């Protein structure tokens, strides 16, 4: 499996998620291609995050949450993966930077390997440097790798979380509002990172920020009240959407 093939990385068919019997997303049919950046937009509570978390089996942790329908990830049914196997291929970045607070910067970057029981220190240095360079953090932290991760600024912490995810070498990276807790400059740094890495990875970004979706994504999917309203090239969604609802949302008439 080469990473550059232009074929679907993620396909969902009739995907439903319910919490306590209440549907959060209903009948989502989506095809997300490899090496593209897909933005998922929509007002609060429309099921964006719920959709994203279904893609790396994160709902398994939530009691009384039920996921039905078909998800195909990298040409394989999601049910054929264990959680561990899947999440090594499908990484996730969260809204609030969540570095491990009692680990150093270095230990955070290699935590995915270390906690999975790979103990080769020489390999660690290589992985850490590559991942930190990829997330544009290397120059800022190369002299202080042993310092605690929480000594970094919020924006740096988020890029550290990206480095930590990149270090595991996933194919797909899910991002749940990755910049909503960051200042504009940190946001720009993260966006640059995504832009630069999109030839190697498949990104799916949930965002509240429509300018962000317009800036960095190739494809945009608009969710409303748990349903997929429209999906298409970002240019089309923002300039000439098929649905009236989409047009109203991207032009700021509601949200």
């Amino acid at each position, binding site marked *: 499996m080469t990473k550059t093939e232009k074929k679907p990385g993620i396909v969902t068919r009739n995907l439903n998620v319910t919490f306590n019997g209440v549907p959060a997303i209903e009948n989502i049919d989506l095809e997300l291609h490899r090496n593209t950046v897909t933005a998922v937009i929509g007002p609060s509570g429309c099921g964006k995050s719920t959709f994203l978390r279904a893609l*790396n089996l*994160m709902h398994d*942790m939530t*009691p009384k949450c039920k996921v039905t329908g078909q998800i195909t990830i990298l040409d394989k049914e999601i049910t054929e993966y264990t*959680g*561990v*196997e*899947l*999440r*090594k*291929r499908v*990484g*996730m970045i*969260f809204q*609030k930077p*969540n*570095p*491990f*607070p*009692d680990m150093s910067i270095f230990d955070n970057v290699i*935590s*995915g390997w270390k*906690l*999975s*029981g790979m103990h080769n220190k020489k390999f660690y240095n290589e992985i850490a440097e590559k991942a930190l360079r990829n997330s544009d953090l290397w120059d800022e932290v190369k002299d202080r790798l042993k310092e605690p991760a929480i000594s970094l600024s919020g924006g740096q912490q988020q890029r550290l*979380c990206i480095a*930590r*995810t990149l270090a*595991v070498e996933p194919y797909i990276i899910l991002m749940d509002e990755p910049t909503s807790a960051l200042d504009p400059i940190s946001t720009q740094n993260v966006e640059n990172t995504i832009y630069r890495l999109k030839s190697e990875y498949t990104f799916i970004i949930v965002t509240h920020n429509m300018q962000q979706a317009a800036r960095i994504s190739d494809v945009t999917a608009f969710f409303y009240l748990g349903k997929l309203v429209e999906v298409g090239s970002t240019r089309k969604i923002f300039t000439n959407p098929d649905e009236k609802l989409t047009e109203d949302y991207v032009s700021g008439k509601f949200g």
Partner: protein
Amino acid sequence: MELNSITYSKAKLRRRKFVNALMLSLCVVSALITIIPLIYIFFYTTGAGLSSLNLDFFTELPKPVGEEGGGMANAIVGTLILIGIGSVIGIPIGIMSGIYVAEYSKQLFANIIKFLTDVLTGIPSIIIGIFVYGIIVLPMKKFSALAGGVALGILMIPTITRITEEMFKLVPMSLREASLALGVSRWRTTVSIVLRTALSGIITGILLAIARAAGETAPLLFTAFGNSFWSSSLDEPISSIPVQIFNYAISPYEEWHNKAWAGAFILISLVFVINLIVRIITRQKYENTV
């Protein structure tokens, strides 16, 4: 709205000020009542115990009545052994059941366990002693260090279970998710991320449980029993500081009374030092998180 449109009378205001002062002074008096016994006990046992404390107290066996000198060496070592056995039983069971309740069990089952551990915490320790007497001493047909250690271990379990659970709950969900999202397995996340983050709090709980168990007399009376000599094995009766204090204190001999005070001083110092360590650990914890 103008200020004088609020109706108030000077008499009402005076009354409120008086009630306020009264309540505040009651609070101050209560706070003093809380700490006075501790200060009194501390100074009294120090005064009475320190005079009969010498090197022999830590190295010698108890002497028979009438003979001068002697010490509590066997009781000090005995207490350490009993705490050791209690810890070997209480710490792993306490931590693991706490982890189960916090991370894995269904809500209903978790609530049942929480309720029962609360009840267990409230059960008088002498009843635990009787229980262990029934399950270990009677079948073995003798008092033993093992039985005493088991009794202390059972006493420690509910405290450690609850504190483990509470500390696990304080670890943010986002850390678990961060670890799982990296493809780390659930049990590894629990051990390497959640337990590690919660560890200083859990150690605090363990130390407090040990401090409590170290001073227990009642559950040891029918289990470890006591011993005037070195006990050679875990299935023999063993001496402990609290039981030794008890035996000396109810004796009619002045010399033994002094020994009891010295023992009490050692016990209080032990609890004091453990609490001090707890303070240091928790302070570091807060410095780290802020």
